[in-house]
């Protein structure tokens, strides 16, 4: 990489955060902060990490650039290509698939006009399929940027996408209103908890 092409630097606020992460580790072990710094860089850089950003991190942590690449390519949550403002990570592992994740994918295709691995032309949305995100009880689900949207139906998915497009923030978590992963059919135990 050309040294002259380094046009990524942490913003002053992020630099403070980066220094805080680095301070967590003993002297000489600053490279341990690489994943945290990649996350910071990704947030600052509009959802993806550029080569320049990785070079900047390597310099900050006094490690070889290839060592940063290794970490960045290992973790799927580090995006090495530009993504839309909203990164939709649609779970397709068996529980979500059985509960209708295919329908959600079709909705995305209908509403946004993009298939898996594609971005909308306006740079608003990117759709990818991922393996299990650990919310199987509330299947089917999708993660959009940092938030989980659970108990989705095709119709609800469409509403969420349209809200995001209008710049509104849909409610996160279960879309059917249940509390976290409590039984979908209502409480089955401790039903008389109030009378004990």
């Amino acid at each position, binding site marked *: 990489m050309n040294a002259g092409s380094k046009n990524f630097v942490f913003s002053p606020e992020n630099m403070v955060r980066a220094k805080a992460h680095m301070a967590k580790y003993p002297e000489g072990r600053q490279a341990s902060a690489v994943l945290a710094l990649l996350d910071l860089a990704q947030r600052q850089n509009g959802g993806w990490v550029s080569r320049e950003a990785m070079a900047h991190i390597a310099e900050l942590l006094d490690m070889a*650039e290839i060592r940063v690449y290794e970490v960045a*390519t*290992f973790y799927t949550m580090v995006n090495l290509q530009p993504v839309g403002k909203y990164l939709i990570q649609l779970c397709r592992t068996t529980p979500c698939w059985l509960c209708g994740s295919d329908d959600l994918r079709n909705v995305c295709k209908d509403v946004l006009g993009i298939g898996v691995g594609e971005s909308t032309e306006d740079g608003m949305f990117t759709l990818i399929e991922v393996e299990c995100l650990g919310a199987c009880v509330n299947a089917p689900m999708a993660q959009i940027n940092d938030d989980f949207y659970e108990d989705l139906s095709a119709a609800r998915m469409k509403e969420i996408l349209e809200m995001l497009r209008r710049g509104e923030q849909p409610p996160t978590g279960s879309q059917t209103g249940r509390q976290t992963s409590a039984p979908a059919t209502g409480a089955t135990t401790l039903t008389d908890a109030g009378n004990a």
Partner: protein
Amino acid sequence: MMKLTIDGIEVEVEDGSTVLQACEQAGAEVPRFCFHDRLSIAGNCRMCLVDLEKAPKPIASCAMPAGDGMVVHTNTPEIKKAREGVMEFLLINHPLDCPICDQGGECDLQDQAMAYGRHFSRYGEHKRAVKNKDVGPLIETIMTRCIHCTRCVRFADEIAGVEEFGAVFRGEHMEIGTYVEKAVSSELSGNMIDLCPVGALTSKPFAFTARSWELRKTESIDVLDAVGSSIRVDSRGGEVMRIVPRLNEDVNEEWISDKSRFACDGLSKRRLDRCYVRKDGKLEEASWAQAFAATAEALKGVSGDQAAAIAGDLADCESMTALKDLMTGLGSNHMDCRQDGAKLGGARAGYLFNTTIAQIEDADAILIVGADPRWEASLVNARIRKRYLRGGLKVGVIGAQRDLTYPYDLLGAGPQTLGEIAGGSHDFCQTLSAAERPMLIVGPGAVARDDGAGILAAARGVAEKFNMVRDGWNGFNVLHKAASRVGGLDLGFVPAAGGRDVGAILEGAESGAIKFVWLLGADEIDVARLNNAFVVYQGHHGDAGAAAADVVLPGAAYTEKDATYVNLEGRVQRTRRAIFPPGEAREDWTILRAFSEVLGNTLPFDRLGDVRARMAKISTSFETVDSVTPAAWDDFGTTGDLSGGAFSGAVDDFYLTDVISRASHTMAQCSGLFVTGQQGKTGTDG
């Protein structure tokens, strides 16, 4: 010490050994891909599984520390089955292209598949394919063959000191590479080819030229730098096909530099294969008799005081002996083997790398003065890095700023700093005083200058001041970059009383005081200054020296003669003839012997043994071969005024230092890429 029982044999191993090492000690053969003696342990190929009693499952012996009382089995049916399982997984994605693979015949995977492989595959799915990487002009990559042992990654990190290789992506998608495609910028990169247990990294210049089993292997010595690495010359017919390293723990371990390895294509280019005599300003082909007659004619009327000889960087000791005796017979004292003008000579300890390369590992502080070990003697630098990795080494450098692959303190640029250290006023003095085994390395950049003798004396002063020279330890070292230098100094191929050195010979040739100059492979001098003199060039390549010559006598390159070289430690080593010299070229000492007969003053050498006996008479150091005898601490260096000029880097271009590498196409490519700085224009930048 710990006691283990391996296959019923009891062995005792040192603390810190692994089970694999214990198995080897017991004589049990354990297959492996990722494990390598000189690299850190990765434990990722799983081929070295052995059965450890009381362990629930087979263990990877390379990564398991040996423990007292362990009972290990390496040859049970279960272990064979386990290894066969590992082999089957390794072969899932490995292409079946051995017939077109350059590694075929010397491939660890191929060999071990013979013992642990099935004769068919149970894998019906598509094999994965991996894109090849462009890592420069030396290494060909066929990454689909890679089994992810990560030896290359660890070599680059640990031995070469360039963290550029890595394992990117993960799982099924894992690839070995540089991520951002670029050439590996290490002068030791070629060793990755030897390390690679499969055909993923192979030699690019050697690609598809020969099979390993059809090559004749000759054990020899490298002469392209002063380290004198042990090499094996692989030849077919009359051509050197490749050069690979040979194990020599005292010198090069099992590495060689890229120049030693890849400059061999220069051995068949621009060769002098017949005599030439200059007629009417043009070199014309001639027979040996005509060339000798023309030379003898030119010597008529030239007094001994008007004749001079210069030996080049690749000259062997036999030919220097013969030339020295020839010149002395002519009555000339004007001879020099120090083309670069280094002010070295005197006591042997004053121009040797006294510490020896292997003992660098015992040093705890190193002061480098006007040397660039990375380019001047790559394997000395690799040793220093090896020592650095063990921790507790302090390095100070006086000279130019340069990436040496290990951290150091840049103390200053020139003799002034050396003076401060000698005077005790410099901060680095504390480091040197505190060190138990301090080392000082003086390089060509410090001694090949007008005040070189003074600098050498100052360096000697530093060595004595900090107790670097004592019983059992000599920390005073001179770094050479030419294979012929120490041998030439041992033979006294330097001006005798009243004689001229290189600079004075050139001056004399300009002024007319010198009328006849014999160049023994001397090309790295300003030959234009020899225009007024009659020049005989004896050598093997048509380079600067031959172009300026009046008579050209074709000699043999180091792969074509049994010759003696002395490496920078003072280790007398011998090359072996792998192929015959081309055309009418002859071994160099025989040329001088034949010419002396024409002059009527025949040198008393009829056989190689006679020359070597004469060498031993000149210096007893030639009596022992392949070992180093410590040199006595005696007089050398002349105290004098030091100028203020900064030490120069003595090597401008690592890849083009001598006639062989300058004739090499591969070296020219490397030079273009790494030295003249077109790195940015390769690979993805297209």
